[in-house]
C-alpha cells in the first residue's frame, strides 16, 4: 500500500509578504519586492539590488533570547514554522514525537553571521591567524548548518528524523522532496519541511558579482528581475523562508485537516556538466520531471502549470524552457509557466520551498501567478510565461522545477487532493 502525502499547513516569510495572505496578495497582483540594498553599503558591487524582507522578529513573536541566538535565516524558519503549524491545526502535544520529522533546506546557512564575526576576529580582514577573543557567543551555531533543522525541531518538539538539506539552489525543493519520501516510506507521519536563507551580505553578493550571475540593473531595481525576457541579465538576490507541514494523507483525514494538496512526485538528478553552467538541452532536468511524473502516475499533458526556476540568467531560462518542452511536448505551449523570482528575487536555498508554497496557493486559488517585468520575447524562450498579470485557470497538477550550482536538477509535483481509491 502506498502512503500518500498531504500538505496541511503553510507559512512564509518572503520579501514584500510575510504570512501566506500577504505573500499571495503580492504574487497575484504581480507586484515586485526588489529594491536597492539597504542592509549594508553596497557601493563597489556590480549588483547593488536585492529583494529584502522587512522583518521584525519581535513583532512575529520571537523573544530577545531567540533573536540573539538565532541567525536571521533561522528566525525566518521559526516564524514561518509557527504559521505553518497553526495553519495545519496540528496539535503536536498529542502526536507521537518519534513520528514527527523535520527536513529543512539552506544553501548558505549562517554565512551572514560567519561574515560579521569574521570581520571582528580578523580585525577587518588583516589577520589570517584570527583572534578568537573577538568572536561572538553564538558563532558555533552559525558554523553548523544543522542548527537550522535542530532549532526548528526543538521548537516543535519533533523527535523523528531531523535533517538539514544543502544542495545549493535546489535545497528547498530537495528538502520538501526528502520530507515527501520520508513520509511515503513510513519513517514519519508528519514532517515539518521547507527552507530558509538570508544571503544578502557582502561576501555572498561579492561572490556572485565575481561570476556576473546577478543583475546589474541598479537604476531600476523594481523591474530588475526579468526572467524569460530577452533583456534579462542575471538574477536578483533575495531572502526568505517557507515552511510546510507534510502529513500522511490518512493521518490528515483522520483528524479532519484541511488538505491544500498532495505532494505526488519528486526527483533530482545531477547534470555532471559544470558547477555553474547549464546545457541548452536540459536533458537532466527533463529526466527529473519524467521521474517525478512517473511517481505521480501522470502523463506530461496532465501538468496544468509549471512554476519555473526562472532565475533570469541567460542560460537558465533557455535550459529549463528546453527541459519543459522535452517532457511536456506540444502541451508545453499550452501550459502557463511563470517565475515568481521576478517578484521576490532568488533566495538561493530558500526559493524552492517558497515556490512550493506559491504552487500550493495557486492550486488553492486556481490562479497562476505571473512573471512580472516580462515584456520582450526571446526567440529561445517561446513558451507562455504569463506576462505581468495573474491568470485564472483550472489547476489539478502543478510542477515546480529548480536548478542549482553543483549541477542539481530537481522537480516536485503537487496535485489537488484526489479521491482516495480503495
Amino acid at each position, binding site marked *: 500500500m502506498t502512503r500518500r502525502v498531504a500538505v496541511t499547513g503553510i507559512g512564509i516569510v518572503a520579501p514584500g509578504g510575510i504570512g501566506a495572505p500577504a505573500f499571495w496578495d503580492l504574487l497575484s497582483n504581480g507586484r515586485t519586492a526588489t529594491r536597492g540594498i539597504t542592509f549594508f553599503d553596497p557601493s563597489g558591487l556590480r549588483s547593488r539590488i536585492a529583494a529584502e524582507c522587512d522583518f521584525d522578529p519581535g513583532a512575529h513573536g520571537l523573544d530577545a533570547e531567540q533573536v540573539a541566538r538565532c541567525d536571521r535565516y533561522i528566525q525566518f524558519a521559526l516564524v514561518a514554522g509557527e504559521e505553518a503549524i497553526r495553519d495545519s491545526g496540528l496539535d503536536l502535544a498529542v502526536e507521537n514525537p518519534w513520528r514527527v520529522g523535520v527536513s529543512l533546506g539552506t544553501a548558505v546557512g549562517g554565512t551572514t553571521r*560567519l561574515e560579521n564575526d569574521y570581520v571582528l*576576529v580578523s580585525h577587518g580582514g588583516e589577520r589570517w591567524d584570527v583572534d578568537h577573543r573577538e568572536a561572538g557567543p553564538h558563532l558555533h551555531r552559525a558554523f553548523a548548518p544543522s542548527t537550522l533543522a535542530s532549532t526548528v525541531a526543538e521548537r516543535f518538539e519533533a*523527535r523523528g528524523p531531523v535533517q538539514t538539506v544543502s544542495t545549493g539552489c535546489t535545497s528547498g525543493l530537495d528538502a520538501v522532496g526528502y520530507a515527501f519520501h520520508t513520509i511515503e516510506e513510513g519513517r514519519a507521519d508528519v514532517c515539518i519541511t521547507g527552507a530558509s536563507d538570508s544571503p544578502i551580505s557582502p561576501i555572498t553578493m561579492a*561572490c556572485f558579482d565575481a561570476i556576473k550571475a546577478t543583475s546589474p540593473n541598479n537604476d531600476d531595481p523594481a523591474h530588475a528581475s526579468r526572467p524569460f525576457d530577452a533583456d534579462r541579465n542575471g538574477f536578483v538576490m533575495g531572502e526568505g523562508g517557507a515552511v510546510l507541514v507534510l502529513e500522511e494523507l490518512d493521518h490528515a483525514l483522520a483528524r479532519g485537516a484541511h488538505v491544500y494538496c498532495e505532494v505526488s512526485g519528486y526527483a533530482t538528478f545531477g547534470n555532471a556538466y559544470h558547477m555553474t553552467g547549464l546545457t541548452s538541452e536540459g536533458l537532466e532536468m527533463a529526466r527529473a520531471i519524467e521521474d517525478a511524473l512517473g511517481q505521480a502516475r501522470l502523463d506530461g499533458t496532465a501538468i496544468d502549470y509549471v512554476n519555473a526556476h526562472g532565475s533570469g540568467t541567460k542560460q537558465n531560462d533557455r535550459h529549463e524552457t528546453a527541459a519543459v518542452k522535452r517532457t511536456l511536448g506540444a502541451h508545453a505551449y499550452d501550459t502557463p509557466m511563470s517565475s515568481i523570482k521576478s517578484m521576490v528575487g532568488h533566495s538561493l536555498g530558500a526559493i524552492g520551498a517558497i515556490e512550493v508554497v506559491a504552487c500550493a496557493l495557486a492550486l488553492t486559488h486556481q490562479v497562476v501567478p505571473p512573471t512580472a517585468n516580462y515584456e520582450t520575447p526571446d526567440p529561445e524562450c517561446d513558451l507562455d510565461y504569463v506576462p505581468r498579470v495573474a491568470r485564472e485557470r483550472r489547476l489539478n497538477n502543478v510542477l515546480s522545477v529548480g536548478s542549482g550550482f*553543483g549541477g542539481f536538477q530537481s522537480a516536485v509535483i503537487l496535485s489537488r487532493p484526489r479521491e482516495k481509491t480503495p
Partner: protein
Amino acid sequence: MSQPRPRRAAVTGIGVVAPNGTSTETFWKSTQEGISVLDRITREGCEHLPLRVAGEVRNFDPPSAVEERYLVQTDRFTHFAMAAADLALDDARLSRAETDEAPFSVGVVTAAGSGGGEFGQRELQQLWGKGSRFVGPYQSIAWFYAASTGQISIRRGFKGPCGVVASDEAGGLDALAHAARAVRRGTDVMVAGATEAPLAPYSMVCQLGYEELSTVDDPARAYRPFTAAACGFVPAEGGAMLVVEAESSARERGAPVRATLAGHAATFTGASRWTQSREGLAEAIRVALREAGCAPEEIDVVFADALGVPEADRAEALAITDALGAHGGRVPVTAPKTGVGRGYGAAPVLDVAAAVLAMEHGLIPPTPNVFDVCHDLDLVTARARAAELRTALVLSRGLMGSNSALVLRLGAGDAS
C-alpha cells in the same frame, strides 16, 4: 500477498582519506593496531588558539590525487572527497568506461558540516582586506556545503540522484542511509559518505563555542570517552566515501558484496541534551534493528559514538543496554575514533568503513588511549580482538541533537 523482494543496498567499495591513513589499507592497519595519531595542530595560523590537539591528515598530497583545474576551484574538504571517491570507485572496480555507459544510474550523496572553511576564509580576507572585486570566481562554488557532491558528479560524469545532508555528526550515517534508499528506489550505484576540513583558523574559532570540545593539550589524554578522565572530543579532518550499490548490480558485474546496509533510523533529542540522547539513541537502535530484521543478540560488535563527555558517555552506555537488553552488557563495543578524532559528519562514515573491514578480517579494532572504562560496557581496549563478526551496529550522535544507528551485515547478509 507476496511482496517483490526489495532491492538491497550493498557496500562494494571503500575509499578512505583519514588522519591515520590515506588509503584503505593504511587506514585499516593503523586502526587495527590501535595507533593514535592525535597530535598538535600544525595548520598555518592555528598555533595561538586554545585548541591544540586534532586529527590532521598529513600524508595527503592534493596535486597527486586531483587534477589542477579541480584543485583551484575547491576547498580542502572537497579535495578529500574527490580523492576518497576515486579510491572507493577503484576499490569497487567501477571504471569510468563502465559508469559512462549509464550515467543516470550513478548518484552521489555526501554529508557536510564544516563546508569550505579554508577557502572561504581566504576570500573573506580578500573582500575585507582589499575590496569586493578581489573576491575570486570560485568562492560561490567552493565554500558551500554542496561542493563535494557537485564536483564528484561532474568530475566522474555521474548524473544519478545527487544529494547533500548538511547535518551534524549523525549526518554521515544519514547520507549512507539516503544512498541505500536511492538504491532501493532504483538507482544502481551511489557514491556516498562524508569528508570534512574544519582545521582552518577561522573554522577552529567557530568550533571553540562547542562546550563538548576538548582543550586538553596532551594528545594521549585529550579524547578519552567512557573513562573517568573524559574531557570532551577532539576534532579531525578527512573522511571516507563508499560505493553503495544494488546487490543485483554488484552480482551482475561480478563485484564482491562486502557488506549490506541492512537497517537505519535517526531520531532527535535536542542540541547538547546528552541525558535525553539515551532515549533517542535507544529508539534509533530499535527501529534500525527492526528494519534490518535483526535480533539484538545478532549484533556482534558496536561502534560507539563515544563523545567523551561524561554525561553523553553514560547516556550511550545505557542506550546500548536499553535497546539490546542483557546482550548490551556482553557485546563488544569499540571506538577507534579515539585514535583519529571526530571528523564531524565524516566520523561515522569512517566507523562504517572500519566496521566492514573488521567483519571481513574477523577482528575488532581497539579504542586507543582508553583504559579504566567506568561504564558497564565490554569496551575493546589496548589491542584488537579476534571474533567472528557477521553483524555490526554503528552509532552516531551530533552536537545539534541527532541520533543515528546503522546495522551492517557482512557480505550479502544471509546464509543462502
